[in-house]
């Protein structure tokens, strides 16, 4: 099983993006590198906080992000989204479509939903819920970021 390691920079950027626009749904990309069977989420590119369901600017952004990523020997390996409604922690239909579009560009993409309710000082887990795509469905990975040996994310 691939180990996924999310860097502080990537996490911080995604979470700060979410915090800057608490009234809106925000989304963005994660840049990754794959090494020794591990996927490191090295950096994040915040994309938008308006109309996250609409595709044209997303298409342009992904194309430009790919150019940037290649120049840094990275690839687009992740997509994050933080919904308007903090209780909403399932990947929505629009987000699934966008994440699937990313799969066409790269081979391995993990979609993350930011769980805003976990973004408190008292929280013991990071506020990211990973979804892995397969058979045109995005499945939540339970117990990710957990303490036990079964967790593939940290």
């Amino acid at each position, binding site marked *: 099983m691939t180990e996924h390691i999310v860097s502080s920079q990537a996490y911080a950027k995604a979470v700060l993006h979410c915090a800057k626009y608490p009234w809106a*749904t925000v989304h963005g990309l994660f840049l990754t590198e794959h090494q020794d069977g591990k996927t490191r989420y090295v950096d994040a590119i915040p994309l938008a906080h308006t*109309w996250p*369901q*609409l*595709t*044209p*600017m997303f*298409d*342009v952004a992904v*194309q*430009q992000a790919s*150019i*940037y990523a290649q*120049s840094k020997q990275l690839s687009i390996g992740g997509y994050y989204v933080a919904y*308007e*409604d903090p*209780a*909403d922690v399932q990947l*929505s*239909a*629009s987000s699934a*479509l966008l994440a699937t579009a990313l799969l066409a560009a790269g081979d391995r993409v993990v979609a993350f939903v930011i769980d805003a309710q976990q973004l408190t000082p008292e929280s013991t887990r990071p506020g990211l819920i990973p979804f892995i795509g397969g058979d045109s469905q995005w499945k939540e990975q339970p117990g990710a970021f957990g303490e036990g040996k079964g967790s593939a994310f940290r």
Partner: protein
Amino acid sequence: MSSSLHLLADIRQSSERRPFSVLQLAEPLLNTNSVSATDDAYLVYEQVFISAIDERQIELAKALLLLLRKRFPASLRVKRLYGMINEAVGHPDEAQSIYTEMLATDPTNVLASKRLIALLKAAGHTDEAVAQLAAYLDTHSNDFEAWLELAHLYMRNHRLAQAAFCLEEVILQQPANHYFHLCYAELCYSMGRLDLALKEYLRVVELSTDNLRAFYGVKLVADRIRELRARSKKDPTLCIDDAPQPATLDRLAQLATERLVAIYSRANQVTKTTAELWLSS
């Protein structure tokens, strides 16, 4: 002192949501009791009340609410503020019953209808909110902001065709506002109606200056239509029937590229290099 009052009046006029600024401006006025003598006193109290609940300053909000209640004991406008403070402290059921009571007294009360819809939306009952908003729009179909809100709710549920219908209503009422044409263009693109998307992006270019998004849109759509026409197999989900001739598309893409290069020449190095690489690909 009066300049603060002017600024507060400006913020009321523009209906911007700037709770921090409002409180900063109003607090010295309230502390030195400079507001009560003015004509706008109660407007200011209402404005500061709303900003106070936005910034979780509940005690201040309660104090203002008492002032307003004393002056306007039977007012529905004040009653809705009671609803709002209930929402702010996490008593949605009380708020809901206040709004429903208001609507029972006056079924056409716009404030109560809107607060009820906002409450449903905040509680995550999107479908109910949509239903209520659609009912509201049956009577108040000239409220373009409500159409915009409905479009937003539909987009959240990925019902793009319904969202596009709402945007069409908005554009009918506000045809010169490029922002709405932009949203409509993006909706059309997302639904696969590329010919209409191109027209709307061009309309945005016409209605605004140096609109980066619109130039990107024109280039993106023109390139995509050219690419789709070059393919032998037609994709039934994409509509390009009404698109212009190849020569026109080429010219449009070229013009959009020129404008993009001009705008990016002022950008920082990283952005500029990436953009130029994309534009040349």
